[in-house]
């Protein structure tokens, strides 16, 4: 045990060596795996990724204990693997040898530190790796074409969606998301894992796995807080029909059978994309945009030193890159369209449970699951649709006896469908149940003190209004007479928030249909969210060239303006608060986002940048609140309005009237 007090983290050398041992063991194993790939057409991608991670970690911890040689060596090994992963280089026999060489050298360097002896030189190993990177292909080459990590569509094992919400109770029992993950991966293969925020603001983790699960496992998991639902596969036409019987002996087998049969889907030309990969892509594009902006800055400074003919060529390139970047961004945004089947897939399970509980027989038909809507909408429509389906089972469909007595078939039918019509998506939940009893609804409304329409003026539209009115239903009611249960108001609000509409058609005794219409396209944009003087604003990302932190002490007063040193010149700073007549920040550091370029560049200072968000842009239509510098409004999820700034106007104002708080029409403050 060496205790050398020359580095700040010298106490941790034992931990460091132990962790290195783990990583190096992994490295050895993975290199052998990769070596087996030499000569084959496809590289083992997961092995490549894992190996990369090992070197990355080794680099990190070596840096912390200041073992430079190990850090540098690990860094060059990591760089080579990074190049491989990004398809920039091919793995040759020489490449594998260089990796082996490097890994061995790494072991020696670390071992030397451990023994307190002089480390060997890493130069040769680093040089060797460097050569492999720059050399092109050789005769024994392997393409590291990325194999999609998605589960092939023809997998015979059923797929499940497992949801886990952490809680103090579960923690006390030793159950955490990590234990859950381990359990799931020992039962099958996890194909995706992502966190989600529920409407109540709690956190849930969603795992998709392929596995054969028996009842005992499902029960055990459920007891430990893991909610499991089968993921319904669809046939080639995008329809899935599932017979859901309540009190019957065969249900499990029937569902298993359907799922297995449905699993053998004809291959289509679609690829399942993990949404986290999409997020990563978006992040990469975001980085690209920033780099592009910095390039512009740098080029602008060089302009006067470059002959104009060449400058023009550079400009053309720059413009082309800009255009291509924008196309790329838009293309990725379009990939955000997700089939509405994502929402529908839970429904059979929900219906089955509810039908079983209430002793009813319900047949659920799903249609149009291939209909695509924006990912943004999917997330927000999940709960409203769930609510309406639940309602249909609980309040719409009658018991078998009641149905027979009414001359209907004992089994009720619910049809959940989605279709696009022009620029709207229409989602319908229709049942052939008892319909909404208008008289009972009106009576109930009267009882709770809601304004009711006069006799004879009741139609579907005002019936819906009553059903959705706050106070119409209470939480613990399942009032059959009123026809519908809790929370219709929430459904309506959710739909309207998305600029959509909800409507109702009903015929007493025959059935009910709720129709949700949503726009197919939403004006969605990326924005930075910032606070100044307690007020929150959004700034369109596209207008922001750069983001920085500026210490207030570093600001220079030039006449009446504040400036900050920036890329060898001075950047004028405008405090957003002052522009809007809000008090100055007391902080010693300001967050600044830079808009405009070259001589028109401007730094807008805010108190804090909270983060980036995708926002839905809503217009501000009324004259009373149309103010210079504000281009629209958005909702960050709590229902409060957040104003969207118009950076171009801010920049212009700064140039034209830098010392005046600009006023809007009407009375000044």
């Amino acid at each position, binding site marked *: 045990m060496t205790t050398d007090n020359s580095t700040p983290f010298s106490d941790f050398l034992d931990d460091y060596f132990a962790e290195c041992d783990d990583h190096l063991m992994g490295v050895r194993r993975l290199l052998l795996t990769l070596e087996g790939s030499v000569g084959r057409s496809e590289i083992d991608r997961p092995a490549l990724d894992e190996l990369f991670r090992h070197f990355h970690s080794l680099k990190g911890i070596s840096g912390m204990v200041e073992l430079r040689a190990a850090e540098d060596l690990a860094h060059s090994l990591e760089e080579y693997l990074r190049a491989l992963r990004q398809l920039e280089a091919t793995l040759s026999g020489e490449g594998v040898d260089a990796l082996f060489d490097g890994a061995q050298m790494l072991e020696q360097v670390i071992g030397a530190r451990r023994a307190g002896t002089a480390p060997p030189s890493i130069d040769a190993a680093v040089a060797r790796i460097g050569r492999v990177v720059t050399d092109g292909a050789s005769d024994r080459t392997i393409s590291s074409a990325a194999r999609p990590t998605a589960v092939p569509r023809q997998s015979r094992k059923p797929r499940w969606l497992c949801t886990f919400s952490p809680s103090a109770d579960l923690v006390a029992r030793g159950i955490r998301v990590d234990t859950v993950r381990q359990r799931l991966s020992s039962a099958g293969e996890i194909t995706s894992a992502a966190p989600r925020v529920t409407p109540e603001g709690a956190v849930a983790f969603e795992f998709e796995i392929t596995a054969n699960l028996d009842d005992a496992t499902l029960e055990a998991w459920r007891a430990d807080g893991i909610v499991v639902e089968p993921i319904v596969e669809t046939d080639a036409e995008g329809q899935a029909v599932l017979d859901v019987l309540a009190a019957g002996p065969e249900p499990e087998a029937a569902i298993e059978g359907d799922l297995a049969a449905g699993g053998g889907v004809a291959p289509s030309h679609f690829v399942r994309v993990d949404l986290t990969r999409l997020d990563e892509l978006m992040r990469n594009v975001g980085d690209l945009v920033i780099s592009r902006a910095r390039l512009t800055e740098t080029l602008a400074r060089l302009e006067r030193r470059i002959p104009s003919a060449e400058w023009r060529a550079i400009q053309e390139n720059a413009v082309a890159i800009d255009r291509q970047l924008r196309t790329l961004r838009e293309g990725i945004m379009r990939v955000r369209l997700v089939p509405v089947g994502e929402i529908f897939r839970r429904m059979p399970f929900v219906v089955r449970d509810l039908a079983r509980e209430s002793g009813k027989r319900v047949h659920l038909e799903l249609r149009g699951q291939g209909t695509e809507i924006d990912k943004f909408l999917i997330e927000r429509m999940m709960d409203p649709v769930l609510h309406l389906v639940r309602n249909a089972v609980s309040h719409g469909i009658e018991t078998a006896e009641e149905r027979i007595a009414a001359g209907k078939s004992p089994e009720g039918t619910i049809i959940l469908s989605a279709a696009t019509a022009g620029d709207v998506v229409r989602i319908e939940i229709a049942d052939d149940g008892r319909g909404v009893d208008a008289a009972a609804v009106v009576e109930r409304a009267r009882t709770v003190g809601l304004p009711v329409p006069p006799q004879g*003026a009741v139609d579907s539209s005002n019936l819906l*209004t009553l059903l959705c009115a*706050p106070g119409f239903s209470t939480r613990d009611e399942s009032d059959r007479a009123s026809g519908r249960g809790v929370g219709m108001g929430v459904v309506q609000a959710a739909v309207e*928030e998305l600029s959509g509409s909800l409507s109702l058609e009903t015929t007493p005794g025959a059935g009910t249909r709720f129709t949700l219409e949503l726009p197919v396209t939403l004006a969605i944009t990326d924005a930075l969210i910032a606070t100044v003087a307690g007020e929150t604003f959004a700034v369109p990302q596209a207008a922001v060239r750069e983001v920085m932190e500026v210490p207030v002490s570093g600001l220079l007063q030039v006449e009446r303006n504040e400036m900050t040193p920036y890329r060898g010149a001075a950047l004028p700073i405008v405090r957003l608060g002052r522009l809007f007549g809000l008090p100055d920040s007391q902080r010693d550091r300001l967050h600044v986002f830079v808009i405009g370029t070259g001589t028109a560049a401007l730094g807008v200072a805010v108190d804090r940048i909270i983060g980036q968000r995708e926002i839905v842009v809503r217009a501000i239509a009324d004259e*009373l*609140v149309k103010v210079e510098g504000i281009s629209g409004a958005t909702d960050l999820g709590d229902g409060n309005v957040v104003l969207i700034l118009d950076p171009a106007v801010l920049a212009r104002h700064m140039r034209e009237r830098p010392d005046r708080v*600009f006023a809007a029409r*009407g*009375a000044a403050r």
Partner: protein
Amino acid sequence: MSASGMAQGLGSYILFTVAGTTYALPSGEVRHMEMLEGVTRVPNAPTFVDGVVFSRGQVVPVVNLRARFGFERAAYDLRTRLIVVQAASRVIGLVVDSAREFVNIPPESIQPPHEALAGMSGRYVEGVASLGDKRLVLTLDLSRILNFAESLPLDLNS
């Protein structure tokens, strides 16, 4: 509560109070009423505009009637209401001290306003009605309230 869904005969009004006086608006002009939460200030908007809120997915300006009528502002409390009205194609929210009742006021019982009523809110009053229970309520001209250009001379407290 939504009045718009109700097929109302002529003469149906919503009553609300501002600084102790009761006013009435035709319920056909009222889209709905809400409790007020989280108004976002709009910098540099007119003084009587408290800000904006979202209502049914739309950005709605919030006009403080106390301020509009020249009274001192009061803090929002549990009885404060936002009455979302529609005038032509504009949707605006009015902040009032309380709002609750629907009444029917036959057109005959509405008189033009007295000379003496002109003054603070007088400019916006269309008529005076006497309710069955002897209460006096003032019926309002919404378009005047919402007409921006008229705001300047009236802001006695600015």
